[in-house]
């Protein structure tokens, strides 16, 4: 068990993080090729699917550009909080990394649940959900503010004494795991795995528009959070993917800004300031109910 307390340098952690980041993209792309072949064999490959996939990678590219612009500030906030407000200083060991991954996964759960329950946050996360398809490329479908919300939910880890480099590594691990879930190729995994871990089956449910599946399975790596907090649903009937109402576009610009364009339009037509405030704060379901009431 000695290796669990072996001390890394921050360089080692950074190296590990970029290593995972780079190689994972290669792995994900090759998995995507396999999926495309599978679509071809099942004769379900359509022009819309091709356009949708290209759009997914364009939103990824745009997102990466935005991240590059804000990365220094994002990291700076973590280091500032860590240097000034940390309660202890946890050593840079594999054991610390393991603990951090579990806590980052819990933070991810709450962040993700928040994204679904807050109008302003949903306007960026809706992009990820707006595809009517479900494959690895959908994992890369990002909204313009997807980088902002993780900040608030992961910052407490710096106060607990996790070195920011370890926090970033843990965020990458959760993200990478999440990416792998976006596939229809894997049906169900062995029972014990489905019980503890998030799986493609569980995440398909999360992307569903079926009524019984709405706002379920927010998990990153561990599905136990959803089971504990009462947001779990099992995949039994066939999943219909996407959001309601659908975006119905494969234009990358339309898709990328769809959430905020819609939000701005709703704000513009809002009857009063209270309604506008509610649009930003309340769940998207609230806005939808209001609009239907008025019809």
């Amino acid at each position: 068990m000695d290796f669990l307390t072996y001390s890394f340098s921050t360089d080692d952690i950074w190296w590990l993080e970029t290593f995972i980041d780079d190689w994972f993209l290669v792995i994900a792309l090759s998995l995507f090729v396999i999926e495309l072949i599978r679509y071809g064999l099942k004769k379900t490959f359509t022009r819309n699917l091709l356009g949708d996939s290209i759009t997914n990678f364009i939103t990824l590219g745009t997102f990466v550009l935005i991240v590059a612009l804000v990365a220094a500030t994002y990291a700076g906030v973590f280091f500032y909080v860590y240097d000034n407000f940390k309660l202890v200083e946890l050593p840079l060991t594999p054991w610390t990394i393991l603990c951090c991954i579990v806590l980052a996964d819990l933070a991810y759960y709450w962040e993700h649940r928040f994204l679904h329950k807050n109008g302003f946050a949903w306007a960026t996360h809706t992009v990820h959900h707006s595809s009517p398809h479900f494959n690895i490329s959908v994992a890369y479908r990002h909204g313009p503010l997807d980088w902002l919300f993780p900040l608030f939910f992961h910052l407490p880890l710096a106060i607990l004494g996790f070195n920011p480099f370890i926090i970033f590594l843990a965020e990458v691990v959760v993200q990478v795991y999440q990416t792998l879930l976006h596939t229809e190729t894997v049906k169900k995994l062995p029972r014990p795995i489905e019980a503890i871990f998030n799986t493609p089956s569980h995440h398909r449910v999360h992307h569903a528009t079926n009524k019984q599946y709405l706002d379920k399975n927010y998990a990153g790596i561990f599905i136990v959070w959803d089971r504990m907090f009462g947001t779990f649903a099992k995949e039994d009937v066939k999943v219909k993917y996407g959001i309601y109402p659908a975006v119905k576009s494969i234009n990358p610009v339309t898709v990328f800004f769809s959430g905020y364009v819609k939000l701005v339009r709703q704000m513009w037509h809002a009857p009063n300031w209270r309604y506008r405030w509610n649009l930003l704060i309340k769940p998207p379901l609230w806005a939808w109910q209001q609009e239907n009431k008025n019809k």
Partner: protein
Amino acid sequence: MKLMSSFAISGVVVVSIWGLAMMQFPLMAATEHSDKPDVQVEAPNLTTKQSNPRPNTTEAVKGVRINTMSISGVQQKIAIKHIAKLWETFENQQALNKNLLRYPRKISVYYQNFSQDYQKADVSIGYLSDIVRSANQSTTIKGGRYERVLQKAAHSNEELADAWKKIDYRKNLQSVLEIHYLDASGHPVSSEFMVNYK
């Protein structure tokens, strides 16, 4: 209500996992003790005091053997009373801290090439070079027999300053070695002060 209990459970999970992470502190302290000591204590050697017996001296002077080692950090010719400035420079060495291969267990301060009046010296403050990646600014600490002026214990800055007064300046002062031992989170917990005469 459901949401509130979920928050509460999350809080419990966070505290538990945090506790698991912090379990490493006592564990690391334990491995520190099993580390091979660099300093081997010789039998108490009182001969140096015999020529000048002081009845109220309670601290027996011990001879210690120090192995030759190399430390990396900062070095400068400086007035000994301005040592705080060099400590400041040392603490601001971002590059050095980034190059640490593992958490340092001690910081060594080495004084040599004293001026005639013993007010100035070449002072080096650093970590053991073998835990620093690509160590460039390094100083060799000459091994040999040292006399321990302050035993390894928690000493205040005043005690450390007072240690200088306990040095026998009639003998030919070669070097002074001050070691600060750190806990797992890098805070100094104890120190010792040793002198090497020519």
